[in-house]
């Protein structure tokens, strides 16, 4: 039996069950944070820093406090000063504690100065107008070169800034994180090469742009506890970080995530909840804070801009003899993800191709620009642009088809990479060999769909409109091994339905549905028997949350184990009811059946018996899971584009996005993840970027000026799920959500070269940038 054929006999898994909340959402029923706000809630508004780098000399809120409708004002003078990290990560975080609820220093345009809670939004805004602030302007730092320069202004000069674990952090040099490793010898490897390369690539600031902005509602429950309803990907981290920042016990806080309107990583951040909770404590009232779109762009999290220098050597036969990646990124004013993102640039990219001599050096620096956070693809997106661009150049140098060059070099089933062991998150990584890997098949199917055999060299192409094809191979991970934990519990009800309680966080991905399918498969029942309740710190078991492509693989296995636990109890009671030894019964189709098929009791009967009739107890299964591996999903992307050499405009004629995500628990949802990730990647590659004025203020803070793709922009997209089976995942599954965003930038860069001979090492590929590259190529 071929590996992927193991998935053949599943009944609930590998089936496109209807997403359980789809109709509720399509009808517009109350679902999101803002739908649960009492009409008398106070409205919070923030005074944001207009300066990129300044010290607050004087801050006077006395007039604001007396304004009509104002119930409270928060500023550094009246809140606890506790250094913390806003990133929702494992604890202790591999990240600097460099943030305060409010500080005397502002570090980017859009940093917090003071907040008002008032009866109406208009009153809150009016109160902001009368807050008096005197700033002492400091020299800002806007570029990596400025941040790294000797004697550069120090962005975090506060005494409290520190990382809670022993890893490199030098705020006096604006250095947020530094990781380095070497396997084999880069220098020695380079000497064996017939061709050597040394290029530098730049990637832009970009944003997630969920349609629901960040929203947080805090209320004081009748018990006096703080009840936070928030658009978060990390409810348990939210509870921990808010408790720390407010200096209140974790026990006093409940965090609930209702449905949320998209996240893509930006809601892995505790950006609002400390303030809403503090206002609720101060006023005893329900307090709502919702970012508007401009605030979401300026203060919300972004994708880390990277500068990546890649050096490599290749032999004429296609052997890659040496790779050196030097990745430097800009974390903006705070460093929450500085270490992890740069680690992922190496760890999710360098293992893809065979090479015995790999060196990696990654650094993150502070600047006085907007703060970068977790964004789908997380470091891999940026590094794949460099790696996959260089792969094409290496192939051209040795005169090999770039697809064939990738085919002879990519990692196979059963192979490891020294990088897996060398690069972890704040510590060494976890050695791993790749289990499931259908990349070879992804390439074959993708090439066929795009008609790769028709690809022609750019040198023969003439005329205004020139067509080109490009490709890229990609991988990601599934969870952070030995660090992430997910847990679940599952209990039976009178009628044989089940409550599935998970800490895992569905941010629109459909994970509640996927986890219900996994539970139903294990329990031999139907997915619609599952009542899923997720992400409530009072009621559901712990889960680190939705990030690092972990939910299906990690939380899914916790669910499977919890369901297996419940199933053991069901078998026990079913056997008791049938008067048979437990070895002589089995579960099938929501019933316990005797081995001879003659006797059966349904789950409803078993539940009623166990709850009401004899030897009563609650059938309830519970389990936790940590992972020992982070199996990569693999993908091969292909595109054909048409370049207008007069205007520089790129038209995407066809885009093929293949993916190996192991067993697709829900193929329709897996396709949806792949379609969404791919189009987001296309939009990022072609149009999306932050534009700043000379004072560091983001200039295009609206969807009118920061364009994300619309239905009209959407090019022909061909999604191909290529099956495989990951033995360590629930029913063969691994992750699906992130990897697809990594492809478009290198695919288009390679296609542009194939069309015109112009090689770009930065994007987005706006007409201006493309035209400049074409002109530069023509001069050569």
């Amino acid at each position, binding site marked *: 039996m071929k590996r992927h054929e193991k998935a053949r006999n599943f009944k609930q898994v590998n089936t*496109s069950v*209807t*997403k359980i909340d*789809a*109709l*509720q*959402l*399509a*009808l*517009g*029923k*109350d*679902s*999101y944070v*803002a*739908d649960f706000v009492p*009409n*008398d809630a106070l409205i919070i508004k923030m005074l944001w820093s207009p300066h990129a780098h300044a010290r607050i000399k004087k801050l006077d809120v006395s007039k604001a406090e007396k304004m009509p*409708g104002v119930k409270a004002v928060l500023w550094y003078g009246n809140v606890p000063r506790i250094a913390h990290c806003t990133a929702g990560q494992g604890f202790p975080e591999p990240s600097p504690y460099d943030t305060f609820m409010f500080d005397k220093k502002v570090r980017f345009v859009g940093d917090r100065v003071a907040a008002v809670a008032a*009866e*109406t939004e*208009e*009153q809150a805004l009016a109160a902001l107008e009368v807050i008096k602030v005197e700033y002492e302007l400091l020299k800002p730092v806007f570029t990596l070169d400025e941040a790294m320069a000797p004697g550069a202004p120090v962005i975090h000069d506060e005494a409290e800034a520190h990382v809670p674990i022993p890893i490199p952090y030098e705020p006096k040099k604006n250095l947020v994180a530094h990781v380095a490793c070497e396997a084999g010898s880069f220098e020695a490897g380079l000497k064996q090469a017939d061709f050597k390369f040394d290029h530098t690539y730049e990637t832009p600031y970009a944003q*997630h*742009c*969920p*349609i*629901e*902005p960040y929203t947080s509602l805090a209320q004081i429950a009748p018990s006096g506890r703080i009840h936070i309803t928030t658009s978060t990907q990390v409810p348990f981290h939210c509870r921990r970080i808010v408790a720390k920042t407010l200096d209140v016990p974790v026990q006093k806080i409940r965090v609930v995530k209702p*449905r949320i*309107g*998209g996240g*893509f990583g930006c809601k892995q951040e505790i950006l609002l909840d400390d303030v809403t909770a503090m206002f609720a404590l101060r006023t005893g009232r329900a307090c709502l804070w*919702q970012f*508007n*779109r*401009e605030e979401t762009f300026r203060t919300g999290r972004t994708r880390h801009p990277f500068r990546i220098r890649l050096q490599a050597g290749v032999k004429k036969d296609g052997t890659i003899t040496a790779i050196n990646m030097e990745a430097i990124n800009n974390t903006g004013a705070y460093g929450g993800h500085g270490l992890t993102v740069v680690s992922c640039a190496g760890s999710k990219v360098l293992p893809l191709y065979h090479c015995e001599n790999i060196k990696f050096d990654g650094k993150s620096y502070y600047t006085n620009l907007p703060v970068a956070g977790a964004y789908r693809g997380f470091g891999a997106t940026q590094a794949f642009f460099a790696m996959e661009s260089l792969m094409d150049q290496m192939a051209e140098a040795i005169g090999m088809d770039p697809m064939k060059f990738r085919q002879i070099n990519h990692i196979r089933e059963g192979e490891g990479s020294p990088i897996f062991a060398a690069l972890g998150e704040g510590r060494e990584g976890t050695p791993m060999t790749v289990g499931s890997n259908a990349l070879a098949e992804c390439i074959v199917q993708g090439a066929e769909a795009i008609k790769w055999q028709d690809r022609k060299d750019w040198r023969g192409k003439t005329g205004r409109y020139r067509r080109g094809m490009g490709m890229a191979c990609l991988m990601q991970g599934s969870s952070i091994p030995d660090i992430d934990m997910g847990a679940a519990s599952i209990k039976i009800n009178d009628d044989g339905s089940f409550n599935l309680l998970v800490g895992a966080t569905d*941010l*629109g*991905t459909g994970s509640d549905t996927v986890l219900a399918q996994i539970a139903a498969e294990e329990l031999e029942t139907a997915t619609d028997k599952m009542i899923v309740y997720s992400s409530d710190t009072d009621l559901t078991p712990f889960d680190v949350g939705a990030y690092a492509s972990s939910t299906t693989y990690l939380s899914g296995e916790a669910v499977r184990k919890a369901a297996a636990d419940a199933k053991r109890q069901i078998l026990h009671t079913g056997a008791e009811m049938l008067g048979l030894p437990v070895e002589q019964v089995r579960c099938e189709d929501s019933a316990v059946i005797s081995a001879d098929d003659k006797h059966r009791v349904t789950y409803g009967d078993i539940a009623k018996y166990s709850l009401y009739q004899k030897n009563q107890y609650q059938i309830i299964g519970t389990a936790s899971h940590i992972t020992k591996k982070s199996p990569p999903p693999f993908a091969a992307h292909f595109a054909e584009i048409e370049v207008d050499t007069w205007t520089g405009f790129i038209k995407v004629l066809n885009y093929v996005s293949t993916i190996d995500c192991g067993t697709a628990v829900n193929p*329709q*949802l897996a*396709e*949806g993840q792949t*379609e*969404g*990730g*791919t*189009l*987001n990647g296309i939009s990022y590659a072609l149009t999306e970027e932050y534009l700043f004025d000379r004072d560091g203020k983001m200039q295009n803070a*609206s*969807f*009118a000026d920061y364009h*994300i793709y*619309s*239905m*009209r922009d*959407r090019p022909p*997209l061909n*999604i191909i799920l290529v099956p495989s089976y990951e033995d360590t995942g629930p029913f063969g599954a691994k992750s699906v959500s992130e990897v697809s965003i990594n492809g478009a930038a290198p695919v288009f860069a390679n296609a542009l070269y194939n069309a015109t001979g112009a090689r770009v090492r930065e994007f987005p590929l706006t007409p201006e940038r493309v035209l400049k590259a074409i002109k530069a190529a023509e001069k050569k």
Partner: protein
Amino acid sequence: MTTTTHTVTFTINGEKKTFATRPDEKLLTLLRREGYRGTKYGCGQGTCGACTVLLDGRATYACLLYAMQAEGRKVRTIESVGTFDKPGEFQKELVAAGAVQCGYCIPGMVMSATALMETEEVFEDEIVKEYMDGNLCRCTGYEKIWVALRKTLDKQASAKPAAKKTAKGAKK
């Protein structure tokens, strides 16, 4: 709370109602305050379409319109389109196609599609895109939304007699 001296009267989902308001209140804020919370806030800038409602049958951004501008007009929100027992045709197809991910954009999409279906007689792709272009989605890549919409429109077109091929009232 501030005292309100202004009112606005309009037909909401077929029912004529009078609401207290202020001259600077947006229609979106009024609707959500009055319980029509299926209409979402996404940008407040008239660019994302999450707040799309129908104003006299035309798709309109409720975040840009002042509530008092709706005086005497007919407003329709997502609440008028379907229920759990009887979802609208497009809503049914969206669910079947797996087109609802986070779902935040979906009510707006449904309203724009409603305007399309109730205004146009032929549903060529270009006309459809014209109507739907003002509704942004970040989750789906629009693939499954498109599939669901095309299915809905094709069904409706085959149920109707053939008509002339012109776009009547695409959203400005």
